[in-house]
């Protein structure tokens, strides 16, 4: 029987993607494109995939049996902003089933390369963000905003939960509209449409002023090198960094309420949230 070409529509989660793999093999259907919840128009037949835990588990188990590192590649690549991400991931899964794990040794393998490249790009962003995330103290709670290209929150989670284990903090991802909350040894990631920040207090403004002054003073003007600075600290990161923002940047953004703390964490499961995939470190 010949495989027919279809378009898959699924819920955008990693488990959902695994279910797509499952359905594809069950129905002998080859996905040429994937859509999320948005309406999809296509000349091809559309299969809507309902996420079912046991199907996802079955696929995951079979993948883990073949190679744990391959599953890590899949999980990481799923968080990247690569175009047609699912198509590349699907090709990767098929090759893994068909040929085994050897091609993972070759970064230039035509099926592995797009994933490897996207992960390299994401790792670069991650490394930068570990340093570039800027917290502000909002009445004892630390808060930060980021605008990453990739969905990095699940990967920043362990670093910041470790660093600020004694604090309560949140990081809001403006691009993907999700938030990481941490308090008292527990962390959670869930979608948030909009975040309204309270105005900073006097002490916060004082520290911002000190940091801005340090930042300007530490540069040696005889060595001025804007292009070098731009390549290490691209402009797209600067919109959330204290040293490039006015002292009270929250003002005028019609922001009022701080996120509830730590009440949000005690909700047993986030309402209709997409739980971010756990990343084994």
């Amino acid at each position: 029987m010949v495989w027919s070409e279809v378009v898959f529509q699924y819920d955008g989660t990693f488990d959902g993607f695994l279910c797509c793999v499952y359905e594809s093999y069950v129905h002998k259907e080859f996905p040429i494109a994937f859509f999320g919840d948005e309406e999809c128009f296509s000349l091809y037949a559309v299969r809507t995939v309902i996420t079912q835990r046991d199907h996802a588990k079955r696929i995951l188990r079979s993948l883990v049996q073949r190679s744990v590192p391959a599953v890590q590649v899949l999980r990481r690549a799923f968080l990247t902003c690569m175009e047609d991400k699912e198509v590349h991931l699907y090709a990767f899964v098929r090759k893994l089933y068909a040929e085994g794990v050897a091609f993972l040794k070759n970064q230039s393998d035509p099926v592995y390369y797009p994933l490897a490249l996207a992960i390299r790009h994401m790792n670069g962003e991650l490394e930068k963000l570990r340093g570039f995330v800027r917290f502000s103290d909002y009445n004892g709670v630390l808060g930060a905003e980021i605008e990453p290209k990739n969905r990095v929150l699940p990967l920043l989670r362990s670093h910041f939960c470790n660093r600020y284990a004694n604090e309560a903090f949140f990081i809001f991802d403006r691009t993907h509209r999700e938030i990481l909350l941490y308090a008292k040894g527990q962390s959670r990631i869930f979608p948030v449409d909009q975040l309204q920040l309270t105005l900073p207090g006097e002490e916060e403004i004082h520290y911002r002023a000190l940091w801005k002054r340090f930042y300007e003073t530490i540069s040696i003007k005889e060595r001025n090198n804007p292009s070098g600075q731009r390549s290490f600290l691209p402009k797209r990161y600067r919109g959330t960094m204290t040293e490039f923002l006015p002292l009270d940047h929250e003002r005028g953004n019609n922001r009022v309420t701080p996120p509830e703390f730590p009440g949000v964490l005690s909700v047993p499961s986030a309402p209709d949230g997409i739980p971010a995939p756990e990343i084994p470190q």
Partner: protein
Amino acid sequence: MDLLDKLTILADAAKYDAACTSSGVRRGFQPGKIGNTSSSIAGCCHSFSADGRCITLLKVLMTNSCVYDCKYCVNRRSNETRRAAFTPRELADLTIGFYRRNYIEGIFLSSGVLRNPDYTTEQMIRCLHILRHEYAFNGYIHAKAIPGTSPELIHQLGLLADRLSVNIELPSEAGLQTLAPDKTKSAILRPMGLIRDQAAQSKAELVKYKHAPSFAPAGQSTQLIVGATGDSDKHILYLTQSLYRRYRLKRVFYSAYVPVVESSLLPALNSKPPLLREHRLYQADWLLRFYGFQAEELLSDEQPDFNPRLDPKCNWAVNHLELFPVEIMQADYEMLLRVPGIGPLGARRIVSARRISHLTYEDLKKMGIVLKRAQFFITCNGKIPAGLRFSAATLIGQLERIEQGLLPDAVPEQLSLFDNAG
């Protein structure tokens, strides 16, 4: 004087120190303590200043008052400048405030010499003690060991810090005599030897007792000023190599001399800092530490200074054409590392991939090999890249043209009608 003023003066006075890394130690979260150190091997950069340099630590002086009168230094006694000093607690609070906001990985504490080296070091220890023990700060601390400090105080400092450094600054005894008459080579090298020995002892004890105190676990580093004296690149690089070998240094930093003071003994005030020279030294330093090169291979009496038009690796390769081309499918890892355009990561990827696949030039590009440079020195399955034309005579010119676009502050060269393309 308020804190903002102090910070301005004491950061300004510290900015010529090039060392700003938070690498060399991985310490996770510990219950009851604040923070951790970076999980990455390379440390963590928190920002980049307008000069393109990484900011990872709160780099300040305890005080910029100094009893010494080193000619090259902004903090010398005879310089008329505003003086300030942090109190230990002030600085500890500032560090915590910055660390909580993820501005920094920790603190890099240095100081001018107030009264005498021991008194100065005691002030630094007091600040770091508040940080480590009162505030339970678990982040990164880099402290400067001041030459002339007594061994007991250096020992205490090392127990509080992750990294210690002693700056040599002037690469030769002659330079010291003219520019820093209060310092001698042996006074600088003594604490370095001390730090090396105590770190080794602490490591040995940690093997035996789990809770033995660790002394400067991220090792020690130093800084050499480039261009304040007449020392050649060869002298500086050979010195670097012997520091790595004899004193087990983790890093040697180079700082292009920025003329800050009018002196007949120093470069004129309007002369530009020798940034290209500094860049070449860093490139060569990398070759020593990660590529298996020896200083003697890079510079010699015949060529005591780096070629400004070619990076040290290319320069070495064009002088050893008898070793090339290298066959990608067969050359061992060490030889791959010697090919211009191939780094440790690329070499590892090649070694791993060639076991299962015949590699093409397209594949190499995907692995992050800089083919622009590597193409002249390799064959892939016995073939050179299609369309590549060069001879031993044209090679240097071709490489120089590539290098031109890569330099940090490349000055476009005027094109000549007779410049042969290709």
